[in-house]
């Protein structure tokens, strides 16, 4: 029997497969399709202090091996999430869940995290400092080590739950930002959020997306994600959650070998609603194929080529 269990910030997961925030709602839509308790956990829809409609439509553009979204953090706000969404979530999912939080100021982040800290089912707070789709916030915290550290500290001050900071790939030096978060007390890091991308409707001569640009995800970004996970995992001691273009059990293994303790699956959920269930089922078979006994043993387990 192979062992798919991993431990993320002190909480054991049955397997490292985690649907990423914004691609899995609050879980109950997918629970109509399959028993989502097969998952390691999932990260629920990015939640902010106040309710948000998000950006105007169109919000979606297709790309080779990927897509752009500019949803812009549509969510009912933390109060309603706690009042209405989490009870529904609890009925269909019986494991600790990852609460994804966004904000437009440090106070926002702290407020929302403090509220979610009170929720028993929340296992981890995933603090998104990297949303490319909102102005005056989101990604701007994720592109400066100072700001990233400040958000981390503010959130850590209001919660005893593990804090995982979600990083932006749209930076020159992701390692400096990762280290700033680690020094500020982050318990883990998740990366990468979407790359900033753009498509043009050449027939109508305007951007496909009403917001001009958006977050680019899908298998196209996998090599960038693997690279950044590798760089960050080499540089920090806290666990890294690998995200970006994962759609198969082999991708999960590759992310873990790059240094990820657990792995999120994002855009793939949108084109194949059963993909996470299928990955969970395939994982033991893939482990057998690659002669992996214990999944937690492969984290960061690669040998570089000798210099010649």
């Amino acid at each position: 029997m192979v062992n798919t269990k991993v431990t993320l910030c002190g909480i054991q997961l049955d397997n490292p497969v985690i649907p990423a925030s914004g691609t899995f709602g609050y879980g109950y839509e997918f629970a109509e399709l399959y028993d989502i308790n097969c998952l390691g956990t999932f990260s629920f829809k990015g939640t902010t202090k106040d309710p948000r409609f998000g950006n105007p439509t169109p919000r979606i553009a297709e790309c080779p091996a990927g897509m752009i979204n500019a949803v812009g953090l549509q969510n009912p706000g933390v109060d309603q999430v706690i009042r209405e969404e989490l009870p529904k979530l609890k009925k269909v999912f019986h494991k600790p869940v990852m609460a994804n939080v966004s904000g437009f100021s440090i106070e926002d982040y702290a407020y929302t995290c403090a509220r979610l800290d009170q929720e028993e089912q929340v296992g981890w707070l995933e603090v998104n400092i990297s949303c490319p789709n909102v102005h005056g916030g989101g990604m701007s915290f994720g592109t400066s080590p100072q700001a990233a550290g400040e958000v981390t500290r503010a959130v850590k001050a209001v919660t005893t739950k593990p804090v995982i900071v979600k990083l932006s790939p749209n930076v020159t030096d992701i390692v400096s930002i990762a280290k700033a978060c680690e020094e500020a007390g982050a318990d883990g890091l998740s990366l990468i959020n979407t790359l900033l991308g753009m498509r043009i409707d050449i027939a109508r001569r305007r951007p496909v997306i009403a917001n001009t640009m958006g977050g680019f995800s899908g298998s196209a970004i996998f090599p960038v994600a693997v690279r950044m996970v590798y760089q960050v995992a080499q540089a920090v001691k806290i666990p890294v959650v690998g995200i970006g273009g994962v759609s198969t059990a082999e991708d999960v293994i590759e992310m873990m070998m790059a240094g990820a303790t657990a792995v999120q699956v994002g855009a793939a959920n949108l084109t194949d609603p059963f993909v996470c269930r299928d990955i969970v089922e395939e994982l033991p078979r893939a482990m057998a194929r690659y002669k992996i006994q214990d999944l937690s043993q492969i984290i960061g387990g690669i040998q570089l080529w000798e210099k010649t």
Partner: protein
Amino acid sequence: MKQSVFTIQENTPLTRDVMKMVLLGDTSAITAPGQFVNIRLAGRFLRRPISVCDWDGKTLTLIYKVVGHGTAQMKAMVPGEKLDLLTGLGNGYDLSVAGDHPLLIGGGVGVPPMYGLAKALIQAGKAVQVILGFNTWEECFYEEAFQALGCAVTVTTVDGSYGTKGFVTDALPEHYTHFYACGPEPMLKAVHASTATSGQLSFEERMGCGFGACMGCSCKTLTGYKRICKEGPVMRKEEIAW
């Protein structure tokens, strides 16, 4: 919603750009006319949402317009080829409020879902009036199909090359109990403004998933935010924020 593989039985042109595809497979998730399916195509990241024209226990009929690379790829497919579909997506039309003399209005690629709707309403004993709007004669399709169901059909063309010259709103009858409309947004707006009864309108938007997960196709309505793929694509006239 169900994910399953369908086999193409027929894929033939109705006009220069409009194709009719008949597929064999599991249609059990389809519960109402006005729903759509989401089709995976080789080499394309996103699925293609296509409204259901007609279905029975075994077959599914789609009518689609070739507008981009994805639909061009569909056009090139031949009987025997297989397609991965998500079926039973969206709310579909509510037939219970049709009244005795419902009016169905379809414009261009908004025509196909009206067919399945007309069929169901006729089966329920309604007297169905249909207005089909096209730009020009060459683009017209399915008039006979609706007539064969027993509908009273009016065709409009913008250039007057066939039927009544003008827009669908130029052919509105005096009396109808409820209307159902599907077509381009300017048509829907005109219908919304020109109709006196209650009605249902079906909307389009670029979608990520098609089943409510990504919030890619949200819209604001008078009764709150709705996802066109999940709480839609059919909205009641009364809730549309125009």
